[in-house]
């Protein structure tokens, strides 16, 4: 077992994340591993939809830009890159990574983790879908994808085979970080406290800038300096699982026990039992200690045996969403917006035959984000937003068209109309027995 600490850097916290903070980490972070978490529930289903349209696509569109930017520095520093940017097509992503490495003159070994695509398996197993409470076969919608959350084991296996770049599809986010820790510290698959501690570190780092002041900043109560050059975090993780979090000198942001506490509990349902494919992690006794400026010690995480089943994200064709917006300002702005909303609603039903219950009318600037939970205010300006999910693209396009037509047919002073159309991939979840999911690791030569 390694006595030294392993340094993990957070290169991205979501598919659309900034690239320059990762380049900074790759250049001067002295990292062992640089990790890009680029896959949300919705992202993997959307990627599956793209792959159905074009079999060569389906990986993260920003993957090429990220690798081109960081690979030369990572290679120079001996840093291994791990990412779930493979999304719906990790093999194509791996081949792209190998081409980029070859073009840059780097002798990088690229590993691809597959096995998360369980479409055939769920069709055979016909599990109960959480959201409907019924078996998958009872579902009317067209199933287009099923991806199981893999754990850290295949990442650790890829690293043991000498990979310099690891591309995966659907993998539990903290497992991207736990994989390198398992490999370097030799943690066994039943060392629950170590796996729990590594999962906590992964969970803290997986949203990148959210640990260093992003999604935290509030000029009134939570000031964060230098957010335009927000530094992404890294962690030095010891063999016992304790971690010291830090960020590079000269970068913006703040890293302290308040930013850490907020990120620890972000999107956490039960802090005593955070379920992952690797471990049931216990966040409830985690403590943070400020050890220096922008440096925090994390201790106290625990773990219990992992769940026997793996969570699967199911993607269904869910029709189309159409949307239109137009703005009103000045005296009676909200009254005029409401008149406009009523007009659009009436016409969508009467002229286009849209089901009235599918139509959502919102007044941005007058409580739309709070979903009607606050009473009307009298805003300086308000933006009408009408959206609806319908079966086909043509009908969805009518939503925005009707809003746009308010220019000459609606209340006075409407301006700045915009319309938008997108295909919906509806995401639901189910479980599969662990032994019916078989991760695999392929090594490509760059």
């Amino acid at each position: 077992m390694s006595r030294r600490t392993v340094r993990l850097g957070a290169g991205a916290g979501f598919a659309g994340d900034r690239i320059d903070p990762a380049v900074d980490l790759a250049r001067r972070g002295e990292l062992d591993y640089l990790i890009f978490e680029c896959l949300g529930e919705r992202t993997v289903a959307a990627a599956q939809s793209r792959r159905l349209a074009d079999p060569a696509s389906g990986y993260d569109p920003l993957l090429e830009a990220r690798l081109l930017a960081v690979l030369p520095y990572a290679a120079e520093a001996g840093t291994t890159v791990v990412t779930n940017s493979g999304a719906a097509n990790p093999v194509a992503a791996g081949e792209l990574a190998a081409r980029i490495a070859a073009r840059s003159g780097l002798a990088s070994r690229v590993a691809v983790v597959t096995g998360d695509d369980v479409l055939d398996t769920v069709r055979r197993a016909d599990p109960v879908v959480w959201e409907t409470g019924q078996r998958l076969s009872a579902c009317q919608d067209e199933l287009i994808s099923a991806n199981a959350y893999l754990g850290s084991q295949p990442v650790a296996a890829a690293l043991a085979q000498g990979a310099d770049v690891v591309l995966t599809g659907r993998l539990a986010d903290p497992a991207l970080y736990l994989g390198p820790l398992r490999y370097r510290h030799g943690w066994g698959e039943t060392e629950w406290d170590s796996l729990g501690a590594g999962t906590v570190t992964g969970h803290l780092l997986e949203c990148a800038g959210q640990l260093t002041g992003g999604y935290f900043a509030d000029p009134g109560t939570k000031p964060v300096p230098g957010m335009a050059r927000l530094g992404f975090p890294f962690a030095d993780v010891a063999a016992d699982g304790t971690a010291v979090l830090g960020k590079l000198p000269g970068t913006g942001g703040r890293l302290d026990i308040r930013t850490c506490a907020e990120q620890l509990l972000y999107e956490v349902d039960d802090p005593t039992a955070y379920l992952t494919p690797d471990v049931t992690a216990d966040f409830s006794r985690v403590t943070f200690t400020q050890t220096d400026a922008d440096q925090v010690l994390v201790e106290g995480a625990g773990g219990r045996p992992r769940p026997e089943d793996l969570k699967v994200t199911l993607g269904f064709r869910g029709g189309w969403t159409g949307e239109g917006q137009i703005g009103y300002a000045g005296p009676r702005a909200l009254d005029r917006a409401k008149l406009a909303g009523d007009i659009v609603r009436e016409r969508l039903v009467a002229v286009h035959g849209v089901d009235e219950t599918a139509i959502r009318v919102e007044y941005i600037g007058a409580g739309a984000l709070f979903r009607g939970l606050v009473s009307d205010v009298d805003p300086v300006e308000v933006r009408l937003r009408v959206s609806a999910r319908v079966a086909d693209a043509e009908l969805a396009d009518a939503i925005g068209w009707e809003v746009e037509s308010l220019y000459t047919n609606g209340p006075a002073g409407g301006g700045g109309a915009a319309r938008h159309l997108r295909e919906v991939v509806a995401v639901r979840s189910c479980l599969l027995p662990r032994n019916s999911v078989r991760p695999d690791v392929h090594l490509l030569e760059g």
Partner: protein
Amino acid sequence: MILDDIADVRAGDKGDTLMLAVFPRDGAAFDALESRLSPELVACHFGSAVTGGVTRTVLPGLPAFVFRVPGVLGGGVTGSTALDGHGKTLGYYLLTLSIPD
């Protein structure tokens, strides 16, 4: 006094369940909220949008509270046509809650 005077909130989502982590800014705020910020009060603030029992987990070590508010997101990010399907902005709605004396 409203919650915004003594605490921070971070919102997160799991499907159509809203998770709200509340962070008192000091020990006195933690004590006050432990006795006064009940799951019932949070449920009442979100009104009829809540479809099940609101739960509270107390984490004295951080210190923090986690509230689980089911149903509020009405289908969640892929099922809802709402402007903020994640409900990320709803943490600031909780901050408007009046804390009883």
